[in-house]
């Protein structure tokens, strides 16, 4: 039976005071309640990454997050990245044709934003040779770190090139 809860979220800088069915995922909140359909539902099980958003600056699968568990959080979606002009990653994705159908694209871009922040913080990955050193973001590192976001159209080499251009 449905229960509701009150919470406040800051989505792309805008405050939302919400009264929500507690079963509502962050993804369904964005898509069905706030009209922010940029985050996509590809699997609803945290397996494809199409719903990736930034929660307090960290990339996360919005489909695996209950909205009520994030009271007070700052959420950034694909709609919040551009600031009058395209975010550099958005421009690079267009220029490198790093998309085809475009359905995974918002998740890829949000994931890349989060990933670049992780690298800036010095986080190693599975393919980092020396985990104590500052990570060098080569193509192999980008591939590994972007593997939580599936692209069925197969734009991977172009996605790597787009991110490489922005990070380089």
């Amino acid at each position, binding site marked *: 039976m*449905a229960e509701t809860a009150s919470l406040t979220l800051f989505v792309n800088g805008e405050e939302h005071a919400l009264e929500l069915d507690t079963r509502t995922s962050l993804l369904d909140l964005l898509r069905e309640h706030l009209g922010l*359909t940029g985050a996509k539902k590809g699997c609803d*099980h945290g*397996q494809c990454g199409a719903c990736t958003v930034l929660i307090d600056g960290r990339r996360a699968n919005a489909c695996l997050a209950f909205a009520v568990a994030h009271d007070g959080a700052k959420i950034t979606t694909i*709609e919040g990245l551009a600031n009058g002009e395209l975010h550099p990653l958005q421009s690079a994705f267009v220029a490198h044709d790093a998309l085809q159908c475009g359905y995974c694209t*918002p998740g890829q871009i949000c994931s890349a934003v989060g990933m670049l922040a992780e690298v800036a913080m010095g986080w190693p990955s599975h393919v980092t040779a020396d985990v104590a050193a500052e990570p060098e973001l080569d193509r192999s590192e980008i591939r590994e770190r972007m*593997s939580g976001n599936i*692209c069925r159209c197969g734009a991977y080499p172009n996605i790597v090139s787009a991110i490489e251009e922005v990070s380089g």
Partner: protein
Amino acid sequence: MSVAVRPLGSPLERIEGHDKVLGAARYAYEHAPDGVAYAVIVPAAIAKGVVGSIDAAEALAVPGVLGVLTAQNAQELADASGELAVLQSPRVAYRGQIVAAAIADSLETARHAAHVVRVVYEVAPHDVELRAGHPGLYKPDKVNPNFATDTEEGDVEAALGSAEVTVDATYTTPAQHNNPMEPHATIAAWEGGGLQLHDSTQGAWGVVSAVAKVFGLDPDKVRVISPHVGGGFGSKGTPRPHVVLAAMCARHVGRPVKLAVTRQQMFTLTGYRTPTIQRLQLGADGAGRLRAIAHDVIEQTSTVQEFAEQTALATRMMYAAPARRTTHRLVALDLPTPSWMRAPGECPGMFALESALDELAVACGVDPIELRVKNEPQVDPESGHPFSTRNLIACLREGAERFGWDDRPEPAARRDGRWMVGMGVASSTYPARRAASTAHASAAADGTYTFRITAADIGTGARTVLTQIAADALDVPMDRVRVEIGDSESGQAMIAGGSMGTSSWGTAVVEACRRLRAGETEVHVDTADGARAAAAEPLAKHSFGAQFVEVRVDADTGEVRVPRALGVFACGRILNPLTARSQFVGGMTMGISMALFEETILDPALGAYVNRDLAMYHVPTNADIGEIDIGWVDEHDPHVSPMGSKGIGEIGIVGTAAAVANAVYNATGLRVRDLPITPARLIGRI
């Protein structure tokens, strides 16, 4: 006026690229009509039998639930058969078939209600395993879409019996699921006796035709809108049962209804590639010249409707051999109906044929490229017609140079630490056709032009390339042309399928431009006559390509990696090198995936495909795909389209899996004839 750089042939960015990277492009489910309700499917929990009774009382008592639709209260459809006869009978033909739907004012409530619909079944024994020797095997009347089931020329058995060198091998490919990133979704709204659908489809006009028939409506009363589609790969080429269900639910509750198929449900409701069992027999002289080819295919369909994949089709035209036979046999199983998945027929069939060619090359001691050159036909072996263009050898030669084929090691001869390294090659092909399409075009006083055509952009770049075609034909800059697609109000048009979209729609656009340049300001064109004439030309029209792959096989774990691959294609004129390259890369990526990862696994006891999500059904992630290089040979084929182009959407997947398997042989000396090439198929044999 003229422009410095002609738009056609230029690597222009996607017109909707900004909308897509901004999250502003709206896909089917992303509309919010007033009063919209949510429907959730209740799938059958048995593989075969009948629904004895359904108790929806608990579901209906949930606050916010608007209705539960079952076979007991569903409307009788006017003319529905096969998979679209939704809720018309209590019969269950496969596990996961739609037996009910719950409709509520929120998604959360509808999902809960669907879970508490109590369905009681009368279970019957099921038959789900495809195997050679199945007593139900039969010869279908034709194979998809309308090809002869069997062909035979010459005395194949005699030629095989007298051949100096023979290959006789059986190859299998598993069931595979398309899995576009956007799950199939529909928003249905009835208004004034008409039906409007926001639908994720490869062809809005096809949905109109099918849905109008199902509901007994005049096609004028149905409108389908789909400006952005999140991939399809064939699975959205025809409307699936959820489209009908969404419209039934909307009528039942008297409100617009949105319905998305879940990722898990996509494994039962949206089509898949049939598993195949393919026996290839090749007979050749000692130098590798083919004397006989026999390709005998066993595959499955359902008890709901027939789908007969044309798996041996490419074998009819690829190589010259005086004696040739192809056959297809089907068995109808208690499973969902297979359907189109990227290059149906050519994709699984060329895995077998191109693997067998590699085996023949080894048996004859001939280089695999030279073997193909030796067997290049002068005319189409099946029809005797000349090819409109056939540049397979040019692709093989250019690819060999570019890939460094001369550096190919002897089998099982090259090691790099624990990695065994090898190279493989295979040919690609795909038919090059076009179909009838209509288009509207108008010229405005300010020098701008608007085209309306029911094309679909499923990621191909259709909107962009049609704008290029129009700007080029009108000799005006791109920004003077607006092309509106994805709305059935624009009339009949070919679907985005069969690699025929651009050829079909582009021909209509070119014809419209010709009339605009002649002075008309409002034109409506229909290319039906021209498409018929083109199909009747005594020419064999196909695209060709050559696929090169390097593999590294971990000698300890059997893991196969593909660090680099190259595809060189002959697909007529390339209209947009940027988006064309992406399509080729995408096709090859799916081919590598077919070779190494994809397999929908059947549980015979449950009577169901069980790995029904993206955690268990493996598609490649970024880390699985290495560098993919693409090239093409200069070609211009006016017989296929006035642009000189052929189709490019499917050929990229054709032959890739064979190139990988052939490279695995070169690396390890082990022939893997059953896909996918998982570590389990290699470990213990290395």
